[in-house]
């Protein structure tokens, strides 16, 4: 039976069993951390393909109906969009600082930066809600009551808004999930669960948060900035 393998006695023992964060099926903390990080990167690949379908639809339709997309896009509020973009970039900074202070084992600063990230994420979602409400008031939600005043190709302008709601909606749902996870992490950080030796959840959540931000960095120009040159901002 042992002809193909030899065994090192005690190799599979819980050498680090005093470490409460080491799961039983890992050999050591390093393997556990690498595993979690790779898992998050693989998950982000999935996410990339998830958004990818919407980006494909966007590019196909924009290529076919450029005039409709210009007119419909110019109805978005570029100033509000730009403010929200800034808010989100700042939240990425606070998140990165949170990870930094987690690695230093500084509990207070970690909690502070996580709370700041939460606040900025909340502001982003609030502003997004304001924009949605604005679209609702102006009948710019696709469907039976859709109107696009002054649009040269109103028939296809609704496609732009379908994509606008599909893309920003999917993005916002990722923000909401991130918001929920952040609440848990803040509570855990406050309780002192993370140490300079073990802060993997903070680090891989950081990856997720940055990914969601990067998606927005692409959404903002695609949805708000088409053919804005020489036109008034508001």
């Amino acid at each position, binding site marked *: 039976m042992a002809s193909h*393998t030899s*065994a090192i006695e005690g190799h*599979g023992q819980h050498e680090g069993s005093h470490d409460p964060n080491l799961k039983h099926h890992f050999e050591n903390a390093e393997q556990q951390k690498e595993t979690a990080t*790779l898992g998050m990167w693989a998950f982000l690949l*999935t*996410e990339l393909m998830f958004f990818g379908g919407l980006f*494909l639809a966007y590019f196909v*339709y924009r290529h076919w109906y450029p005039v409709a997309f210009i007119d419909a896009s110019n109805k978005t509020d570029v100033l509000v969009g730009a403010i929200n973009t800034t808010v989100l970039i700042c939240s990425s900074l606070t998140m990165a600082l949170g990870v930094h202070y987690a690695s230093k084992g500084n509990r207070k600063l970690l909690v502070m930066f996580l709370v700041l990230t939460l606040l900025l994420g909340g502001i982003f979602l609030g502003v997004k809600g304001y924009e949605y409400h604005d679209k609702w008031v102006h009948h710019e939600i696709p469907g039976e009551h859709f109107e696009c005043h002054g649009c040269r190709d109103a028939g296809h302008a609704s496609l732009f808004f379908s994509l606008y*709601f*599909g893309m920003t909606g999917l993005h916002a749902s990722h923000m909401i999930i991130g918001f929920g996870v952040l609440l848990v992490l803040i509570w855990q950080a406050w309780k002192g669960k993370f140490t300079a030796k073990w802060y993997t959840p903070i680090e891989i959540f950081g990856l997720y948060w940055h990914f969601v931000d990067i998606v927005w960095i692409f959404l903002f120009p695609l949805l708000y900035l088409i053919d804005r040159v020489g036109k008034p901002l508001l």
Partner: protein
Amino acid sequence: MITATAPVIEEKNYLNAEHGLKSWLLTQDHKRIALLYLMAVSVFFIVGGFFAVLIRLELATPAGDLLDSNTYNKVFTMHGVVMIFFFLIPSIPAILGNFLLPLMIGAKDLAFPRINLLSWYVYMLAGILGTTVLLTGGVDTGWTFYTPLSSTYSNGYVVLTAMAAFVAGFSSILTGLNFIVTVHRMRAPGLTWFRLPLFVWAHYATSVVMILGTPVIAVTLFLLMLERGLHIGFFDPAYGGDPVLFQHLFWFYSHPAVYIMILPSMGVISEVVSTFCTKKPFGYTFIAFSSVAIAVFGFLVWGHHLFVSSQSAYAGMVFSILTYIVAIPSAIKVFNWSATMYKGQVRLETPMLYALGFIGLFTIGGLTGLFLAAMGLNVHVTDTYFVVAHFHYVMVGGGVMGYLAGLHHWWPKMFGRMYSRTWSMVAAGLVFIGFNLTFFPQFLLGYMGMPRRYHVYPPEFQVLNVLSSAGASILALGFLIPGIYLTWSLKYGAKAPANPWGGVTLEWQTSSPPPTSNFDVTPVITNEVYDYTNQEVPHIG
């Protein structure tokens, strides 16, 4: 053999380590989760099979006498949805893959045990949504959900069905994610990539398709739900959209999904053929890389489903050539399995019978795929029974035969019991005969022009349809018998030794059934893979 005079102390294993419903529903042991999947997937196989029976009963006569056309539409839709999303996609990866992957790489568990359990609950949630659709009246769009039928005209519960498929997709993403990370990070010391069993290579390639393809169908179904439920249009021309875009997005996943169903089977066949020939698989590296090649090229051929959907002839030509190319790695596998058997001592045990069946049927399925890849011929047989026969040869003749081969191969390992050798061979024969009788006539029907998805047909097609329905009843019997003797074996089967077939991969070196932690000591691998030099051929029967 030990005579049962002294009281036998039951060895601790993953099955008797803990008792009670809670110990199963909250387990993080990959082996127990595999069994949870086995039960759920088997139920859905019976449900999907029930719809298949209804279809074959209706088609026994030319007139639409058993089911009216609306009901028939719902029946074939539910057959497809249940069999694809709830049986074929999870079957081998979530059951056999889940059970074997950690064992084969000498790990204690998958990388993320809790996510593994979560994937089962997500699958069950999808199952509840799907069952709700079944019980409240069904859906009639076909499993392909083509717009604008699905988004505007269908009478069924499209949103709920799409939601079920959407949720089931996340279960398969979680499984794929877990497998990829496990293969990268959890291998035992000394187990290099080129010492991995081919089953592991196949599952790695499958997992890549799962995590890159499934999110695309998810977002497509998400858009379909928005269009149907909230009138936020993407595909319906009434909203300015293009229904062909739906087809592109749908097939970008659904062609690779065929490889989610077939690649794990190929992994099973590689193991079974090697074990029962007591030989290293011929061209190990070629088989390993052909799995990866199938996963990669599988993403580039979706346009062959759109030859008649207003796709340009030039795009069609590219997709046609790429489809021919993707056949090459599949053929490499078939040639390598044959070469492994050549001049080998082939032991005809039940798993090997299924493996031989797989090789024959998959070859027919694959070669008729080449017919369909030819644009001119494709136009003639588009949406006919030729296509139906082709994909059943691949998905049942390939996917299900591989699943049965694997189930019979590793059943002794999973449950520590042997099943009836005679009955299992009878069943394997019935499945092979019944399958061919069911689906070969459908090639002829399709070539003669019988379209799919109709419940009435001209009387001259009746002979072949009756043959097909007769074959289906033999096939049903062939699926029923294993259900009986496998269940029987759990209580009455002879105790299985650790290595009943003389396999050399790591899972055979632990006890049957394995202990909860898989290995008493972490194995350290010093030999090359499939080294049979010291392996005795066991006597069975």
